[in-house]
């Protein structure tokens, strides 16, 4: 069959056109398609690799930052505890001091009050004594005046006193 023969017999025309076309297409594609495409792919791959590396670094930095933050937090917490404790101590001390002072003052006040009361009492007692003495003298005077109204009574008293005085001297 002639067709069969032509199937395995390369024709010159087709070889010519194929070579021309393929080489032209190869050249054009290499220059205007493959070069930018392969470059684009390479750049993108590089940028993705970069981005991944950066992300990893950022993650690490973040972790370091977190660790530092936690440290700071812990320190701050400790400091706060310390401050609070100090404040509490100071407060307690102040309260105790205030209490002491108040107590002392109260005691002083009481003591003064007691002294005043004593003084007043003494004064009152003295006054009372004085009045009682005056009253007694008044009463005694009245009684004496009553009793010693006659001479006879006066004489008996003198005798009595004299006797007593003698008794005491002997």
């Amino acid at each position: 069959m002639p067709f069969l023969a032509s199937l395995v017999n390369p024709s010159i025309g087709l070889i010519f056109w194929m070579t021309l076309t393929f080489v032209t297409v190869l050249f054009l594609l290499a220059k205007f398609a493959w070069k930018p495409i392969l470059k684009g792919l390479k750049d993108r791959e590089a940028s993705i690799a970069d981005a991944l590396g950066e992300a990893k670094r950022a993650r690490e930095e973040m972790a370091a930052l977190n660790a530092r933050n936690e440290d700071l937090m812990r320190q701050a917490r400790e400091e706060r505890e310390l401050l609070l404790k100090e404040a509490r101590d100071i407060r307690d001390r102040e309260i105790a001091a205030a209490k002491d002072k108040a107590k002392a003052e109260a005691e002083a006040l009481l003591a003064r009050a007691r002294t005043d009361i004593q003084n007043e009492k003494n004064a009152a007692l003295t006054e009372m004594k004085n009045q009682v003495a005056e009253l007694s003298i008044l009463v005694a005077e009245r009684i004496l005046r009553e009793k010693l109204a006659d001479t006879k009574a006066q004489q008996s008293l003198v005798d009595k006193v004299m006797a007593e005085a003698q008794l005491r001297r002997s």
Partner: protein
Amino acid sequence: MSLKPLLRHVFLLIAALLAGRSTAQHGTPDSTGHPTAVASAEAHVDAHAAAGKFNAGDLIMGHVGDEHGWHLWGHTSLPLPVILYNSERGLSVFSSARFDHGHKTFGGYALHEGHVVAVDAPDGTDAHQAPVNEALTKATVDLSITKNVATMFVISVLLLWVFISVARAYGRREGQAPTGLQNLVEPIILFVRDDVAKSAIGPKHEKYLPYLLTAFFFIFFGNMLGLVPIFPGGANLTGNIAVTLVLALITFVIVTVNGNRHYWHHIFAMPGVPGWVLAILTPVEVLGMFLKPFVLMIRLFANITAGHIIALSFYSLIFVFGETSAGAGYGVAIGSWAFTVFMFMLELLVAFIQAYVFTFLSAMYIGAAVEEPHHH
């Protein structure tokens, strides 16, 4: 995958068969000498009656081979330029329509069985009557834009359009995720780069990537376009031996030009082999140098052509049986259709696999040629 192209394939074939191979004359040509695109229906019923039996072999070979003019449907074909040169008549360029489907002579040439022959007859003579000038036919170079050449141009335009627009996308959307067409071809480009070039050639692959990518996509587009039954598909471009020859030859040239000392040393004096063995081994290695691209050429050609032949054979079965009885024809049609659907699926796979195999083997040969010596 839609069935539409397949149905079109069926219709196209039926149309082609109805039109017949036109071995008989149709009607009278119109007065201008130009063929009318669509002949009358009666004319080709007569033609069929005259042509007699359906010839599956001629049909298949006609579709698998090349042609001047691009057959579209029925009697309509797209005329393509015929370019001929010989020292006696000089350069002749004219439309393939002038041959009137091989029925007429023009400019001292005619079509015989799809091939241009030089004839000694005035324009417009019946091609079958014209005396063939054998000596001049042999001296004539046929550089016509045939169906396969036109397909090649279509593929080239497609390749340039697709990949230059994709390249623009890389410039426009630098560093961003691919979209659209870029997204579609990027995995294949990466596949060729990483799984073909990088794995077969190694660190020096970048220099050969443009060739490997171009070859891959040229073959892949050619294979796929060959599966499309309607214009501008259907040509058996990658199943044409001239096409695979050129591709294999380019691989051969790249391998030979880039072969390093290590490569040549292995061919002419395989290290560690005694002298008397070399006497046998060296011719084998030298033969292998040529055999490798030869096998590349044959593999692609045979795989793609076989696919086309099988698909067409199943269709032909319908008409072969249809000639015995219409019932048998319809019966076989169902089986043939189912089988062709299956074949079509397989061919889709083959389209990719053969492009891959050709590129991968080319990369392997290049890899062997540029490989740095290992420490034995």
